């Protein structure tokens, strides 16, 4: 099987601090990491390779620094990494990102599966995966919590059966390969990189692709190729007017009850 995993390079939220005076976020100098939810997609790809054989490839679109995210997937055991990087991609919204990623997936040859995280922790849209699938014209299965069975067939045909997590329960779905899946955290427990993996990842070569390599016209990349425009950004304040209660339990409980009553919540 040939599996492509889409991984995004995002700011590390652990490093984001709240300015105690203003209650807003301090963003300066925050390092980047691999989108934590993409690790589940990487892990699932590795498990499928262990079960069915084949090749795993990690693909990311982002600045040069996104190589760090790709090296992390290599150190976990991914076979190959490709970075889509070009100044022309700057300012891409989800449509333009999906357009570039889908062209890159096609450019990289036949595949059986594309795996994505449920969403990225920065943009948090969860849109890029399904958009890539729709642009590739392949079936999209979102919120996959378990892959039950895969029957790959040489040349990208075959079937996959998996469960998706919805509000009401688990839906068991079967569809044809190639397909695109977005996975939720419940699907597995990502492995840690091994020491040898880390060494190999450090030395591995990461292939770079540009917009020209993909034959993407300028009207379809970056800000120019994005249907949406950000017109305003602002930092909401976290803080509320907190009433603190430092009382013994009996009195504290009475205060909670009164609060519930004041707001007709009892």
């Amino acid at each position, binding site marked *: 099987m040939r599996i492509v995993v889409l991984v995004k390079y995002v700011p590390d939220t652990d490093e984001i601090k709240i300015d105690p005076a203003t209650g807003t*976020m301090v963003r300066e100098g925050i390092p980047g990491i691999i989108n934590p939810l993409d690790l589940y997609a990487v892990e699932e790809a590795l498990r499928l390779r262990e079960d069915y054989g084949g090749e795993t490839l990690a693909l990311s679109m982002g600045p040069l620094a996104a190589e760090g995210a790709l090296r992390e997937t290599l150190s976990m055991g991914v076979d190959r990494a490709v970075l889509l990087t070009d100044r022309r991609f700057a300012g891409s919204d989800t449509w333009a990102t999906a357009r570039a990623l889908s062209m890159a997936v096609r450019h990289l040859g036949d595949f059986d599966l594309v795996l994505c995280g449920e969403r990225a*922790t920065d943009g948090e849209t969860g849109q890029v995966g399904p958009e890539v699938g729709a642009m590739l014209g392949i079936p999209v299965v979102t*919120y996959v919590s378990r892959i039950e069975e895969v029957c790959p067939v040489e040349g990208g045909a075959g079937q996959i059966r998996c469960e998706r997590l919805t509000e009401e329960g688990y839906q068991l*779905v079967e569809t044809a390969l190639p397909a695109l899946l977005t996975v939720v955290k*419940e699907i597995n427990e990502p492995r840690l990189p091994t020491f040898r993996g880390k060494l190999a990842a450090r030395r591995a070569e990461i292939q770079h692709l540009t917009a020209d390599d993909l034959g993407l016209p300028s009207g379809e990349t970056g800000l120019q190729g994005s249907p949406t425009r*950000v017109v305003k950004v602002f930092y909401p304040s976290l803080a*509320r007017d907190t*009433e603190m209660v*430092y009382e013994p339990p009996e009195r504290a409980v009475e205060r909670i009850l009164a609060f519930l009553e004041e707001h007709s919540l009892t």
Partner: protein
Amino acid sequence: MESYKGVWIIAEQWEGALKPVSFELLARARGLADKLGEPLSAVLLGYNVRRVARELIYHGADRVYLVDHPSLAQFDPDPCANCLERLVREERPSIIVAAATTSGRTLMPILAARLHTGLTADCTELDIEEETGLLLQTRPAIGGNVMATIKTPCHRPQLATVRPRSCRPSPRDTSRNGEVVAKRYPDEVFASRFKLLGFRKLEEKVGVEEADVVVAAGKGIGSPSNLNWVYELAALLGGAVGASRAVVDLGWLPYPHQVGLSGKTVSPRLYIACGISGAIQHLAGMRGSELVIAINKDPRAQIFKVADLGVVGDLAEILPRLVQRLREFRSDAGGEGA
């Protein structure tokens, strides 16, 4: 672009009944349609749902586009996206608002890709720009620490999703009039590459996203046995049980309970955080709550920053007493014949 007119919402149904989020979407979209002076339509895809179509009119729609077909009984992205794409190409709406549910978040990106247009996820605010009539879409990013306002200037329709429970459902008014337009499409529109082989309902309805009240347990709860108090409190308040990631990682509660950056985003009327420190990733999932009560023994815990009522104390002493007092309160109220 001028030929694109009208505001649509995508109604959601489950086993033939409308989900409340449909009425929340109508409440939001009604204001947009009125500002534009254009009609508001609801799209209803399902099977044997004809009898509930009128409800959408009672709750604010001027028109309902109904597609009723067996292949739409359960959510299947192929026939749903095919029907919607056909409908959009025929009727040319200017704005479509859907719910940020597992189905809305699947269908809308597919639609955006097929129609080559913009889509803004999880909007907390929607408005119309006076001069241009464009949809202004405001949404949180980076765990709610940044808000961005987004427009789709040159592509139609303008697509947005909004989180369930982010506004009150519109009231029901049976004197409202409107038309139900039933659409029929050829078989190929209903063809699917998916086989829906079964459905396993969640044993326990977690429902943190829909609940009016969420009682959330953090690591400070101390041990899984103390979760009983959390469950009891949630039951007494008619709410659901949430969890921090620490609690899920410990295996004390399963993942569907997790609130936060890598879990669910909730905006209930009341959120009670029990023994949660208030890491930024947790706050990302709950800071939209209307009211927050935090109970924590550490007076400097970050959770207090986002709380309306901050109780400093030991959960082991507070929770049992709170449950007991609420029970008494209930039986008193019961005695009055409620």
